[in-house]
């Protein structure tokens, strides 16, 4: 193997000596062997450091848009694809090529090892990029793949760097190098300083020094630094858990608000609530299918659409079935359970029983990095905000609008409300429609977190009822607090008990709680509470 490597290297050198260009040398990528590709990339990075095209070459390769024509082995970049037709561009001449069948091309494939080689190559190139974000990412990358050769590069970058965040990462990297390879006082200082950084890399190096160093002073400083990192880490771990709990709570809240309206206000036990959530998720999917060019906005468009679709289905259910069953909870339960099965089968017949792929827009993926020990994922963050907005909106409609007034009047005393001239049956339909519409909106959010399939709703129906009952039937604030309480409890016991047991513990807890307080956390007070 080694001999081949040497021969290959020599060949590469030779071609460079002959005054080859990036274009010529990139031909080394057109091989099946990942090892040879790796050697080529490493060479290219050294020899063409200042060539702008190299960066885009590696970038394209990383995302799998670098292909070559089977016929003449020329490297092309993929511009767009339409079914089996590819529109490409010659990578080096930038000339647009005519669309060709995808079978005329072969992708320059990469594997995990190559992926990290490319990333570290890019990190070296991009350390001086004009874009702060790129610089930050490459600095991070460099930190993770640090070795002694990077020292000169690091110092150079440190002098040039203006941005504070990037500077901090670079500083950490250079401190690590000093701590690891430095001597005497310099090393001691570096070890002390590492205690202020939170990244796992620092901890790793400190642990390494702890094992190997024989100097007593350094040993003490190392232990101190490790302790300081551990303390702040456990602090952030608690914050992180709280965030996870909040996020789980927001999902529970979204799933339960609709039910809080239909079950809480109207006293209808709607077993098809989960399916209304599912319909919302499928609406999102359908919108993405109809408008493939607008993935970034599809979620925003889906929110009103899902509200309308689920709301209409809800009104239909109310008018056709539930209307005839008011005051008969057992029959309502059975009928709506039947409806839930019907809705599932309808979706199965239209969309197939397989799960559907709902795409995540760019702005909802990734994480907001507060520091190396704490990062909050964007999708969860948006969903927490969204859940609270939906909650406030429902609260507003019920308490501050004339429709809300009528809804409350009908739910408190139907006969008197009718005597006052309120069309009770019309209000029933509208209320049920709103509750169902909100379930649909919850479905839009859930489509970003879980699988969109015919069984989506079933996973949430039990949780929704749990939240509403725990919070106190008929009390929206109770629902809010119950959702977040259950979320937090779950996330704080999950690491100790495991996910399976955590669910069981929560259920047992609620059963016991209901024994003690059958009306939930915040029972409704007053005369109408008795029924």
């Amino acid at each position, binding site marked *: 193997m080694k001999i081949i490597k040497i021969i290959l290297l020599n060949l590469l050198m030779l071609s460079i000596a002959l005054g080859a260009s990036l274009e010529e040398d990139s031909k080394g990528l057109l091989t099946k062997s990942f090892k040879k590709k790796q050697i080529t990339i490493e060479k290219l990075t050294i020899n063409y450091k200042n060539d702008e095209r190299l960066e885009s070459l590696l970038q394209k390769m990383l995302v799998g848009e670098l292909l070559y024509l089977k016929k003449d082995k020329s490297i092309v970049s993929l511009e767009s694809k339409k079914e089996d037709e590819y529109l490409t561009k010659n990578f080096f001449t930038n000339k647009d090529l005519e669309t060709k069948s995808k079978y005329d091309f072969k992708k320059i494939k990469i594997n995990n090892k190559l992926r990290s080689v490319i990333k570290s190559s890019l990190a070296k190139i991009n350390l001086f990029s004009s874009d702060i974000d790129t610089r930050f990412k490459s600095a991070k990358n460099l930190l993770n793949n640090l070795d002694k050769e990077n020292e000169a590069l690091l110092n150079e970058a440190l002098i040039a760097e203006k941005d504070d965040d990037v500077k901090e990462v670079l500083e950490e990297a250079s401190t690590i190098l000093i701590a690891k390879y430095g001597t005497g006082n310099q090393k001691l200082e570096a070890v002390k300083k590492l205690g202020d950084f939170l990244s796992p890399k620092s901890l790793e190096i400190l642990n390494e020094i702890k094992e190997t160093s024989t100097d007593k002073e350094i040993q003490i400083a190392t232990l101190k630094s490790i302790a300081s990192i551990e303390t702040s880490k456990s602090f952030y*771990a608690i914050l992180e858990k709280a965030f996870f709990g909040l996020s789980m709570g927001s999902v529970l809240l979204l799933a339960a608000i609709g039910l809080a309206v239909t079950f809480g206000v109207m006293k209808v036990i709607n077993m098809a609530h989960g399916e209304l959530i599912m319909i919302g998720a499928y609406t999102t999917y359908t919108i993405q299918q109809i408008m493939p060019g607008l993935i970034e906005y599809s979620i925003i468009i889906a929110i009103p659409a899902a509200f309308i679709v689920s709301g209409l289905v809800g009104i239909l259910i109310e008018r056709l079935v539930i209307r005839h069953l008011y005051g008969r909870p057992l029959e309502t339960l059975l009928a709506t359970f039947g409806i839930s099965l019907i809705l599932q089968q309808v979706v199965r017949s239209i969309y197939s029983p397989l799960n559907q*792929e709902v795409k995540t827009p760019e702005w909802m993926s990734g994480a907001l990095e507060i520091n190396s020990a704490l990062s909050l994922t964007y999708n969860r963050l948006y969903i927490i905000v969204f859940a609270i907005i939906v909650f406030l909106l429902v609260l507003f409609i019920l308490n501050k609008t004339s429709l809300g007034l009528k809804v409350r009047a009908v739910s408190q005393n139907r006969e008197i409300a009718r005597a006052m001239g309120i069309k009770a049956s019309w209000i029933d339909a509208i209320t049920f429609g709103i509750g169902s519409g909100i379930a649909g909106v919850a479905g839009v959010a859930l489509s970003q977190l879980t699988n969109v399939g015919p069984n989506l709703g079933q996973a949430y129906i039990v949780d929704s009822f749990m939240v509403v009952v725990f919070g106190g039937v008929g009390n929206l604030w109770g629902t809010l607090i119950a959702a977040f309480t259950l979320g937090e409890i779950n996330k704080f016991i999950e690491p100790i008990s495991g996910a399976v047991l955590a669910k069981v513990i929560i259920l047992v807890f609620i059963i016991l709680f209901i024994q003690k307080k059958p009306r939930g956390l915040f029972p409704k007070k007053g005369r109408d509470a008795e029924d």
Partner: protein
Amino acid sequence: MKKTFAKAIVASALVSGMLVHAADTIKVGVLHSLSGTMAISETTLKDTVLMLIDEQNKKGGVLGKKLEPVVVDPASNWPLFAEKMRGLLTKDKVDVTFGCWTSVSRKSVLPVVEELNGLLFYPVQYEGEESSKNVFYTGAAPNQQAIPAVDYLMNEMGVKKWVLAGTDYVYPRTTNKILEAYLKAKGVPASDIMINYTPFGHSDWQSIVSDIKKFGSVGAKTAVVSTINGDANVPFYKELGNQGISSSDIPVVAFSVGEEELSGLDTKPLVGHLAAWNYFQSAESKANSEFIKTWKEYIKDTKRVTNDPMEATYIGFKMWVKAVEKAGTTNVDKVADAMIGMEVPNLTGGTAKMLKNHHLTKPVLIGEIQEDGQFETVWETDGEIAGDAWSDFLPGSKDLISDWTKPMNCGSYNTVTKKCVGAK
């Protein structure tokens, strides 16, 4: 005149009726869920068997008789599997059955097949620790999937710390038990192994992924060995992506994610993660491209993919046909005898051989997930590996072997006490 004419008609009708009766068919039972949670995976296998029967009939059937499929739907309901199996064997009198997916359904069918002396071909990778006289296991045993995958991570990628994540049921629990014993035997300390179980369809992966991240961020290279089943994989991989864990930081090698599972989801966050199987659709062999072509034509959908359990069904079916032809009868005992030692070319360019313990020899492939939902093979074993019914790494099964040839004829023979432990 009229009377004789009528007589002739009746007579000829009788004769032709007898002719039909004489050329009767060989019945093939298909016991896969067509509804319920497992329908997604199992329907494909039903179609595969029907396709293979169709193909065989075009070639003239077996022993001059046509094959007749008898399809039943056990509806992802484990006790119903046993009932349907009993029906197939007593009422329909099938000569062979292809069926089951989950281990629990196989366990439910097992006593019925043994009692009524049926013949079952089980085409899915499973946890091992079983060998029945009436069952042929054409999927992988743990030493044909899990152990080689771990070896690959350990030797080729230098992984030192392990997360064993699985769904909470029998296959992941047993597989992880075997893997844990194996890793410990290889000198991995207990503190470097993290084991985690989640319920079916788990969707809130935040804290688990965050734990994995913390576990993997300190010290040596970490990998996740995933026996997470079905649906739950999507949110799991999504969460990995969102928390910034890429396949080059902490690779995940999965035993239950194949082409079929990938076809329904956004593969972007999964690119570069690994899976271990005995077959990939991307395998380059002539038999495979023919199989893919026939499949797409049969199912009339060019987007449908092929996967590992389909190959296992294919091998099982071809072997059974050969065994019946060799035995000259569909008698279960004779066919079972003829099965052992039978060789059939597999779809990856090698040969599958039926062993004495009713398991197959299989090559092991490690593939990286590509953006198009296919796998790129990055590593494979030299040649085929013999399936081992009883794991060598579990204390209870270490000494057991299975041999269904004379004179031993035993599914669980203890080599230390020299006794046959289970039923003969």
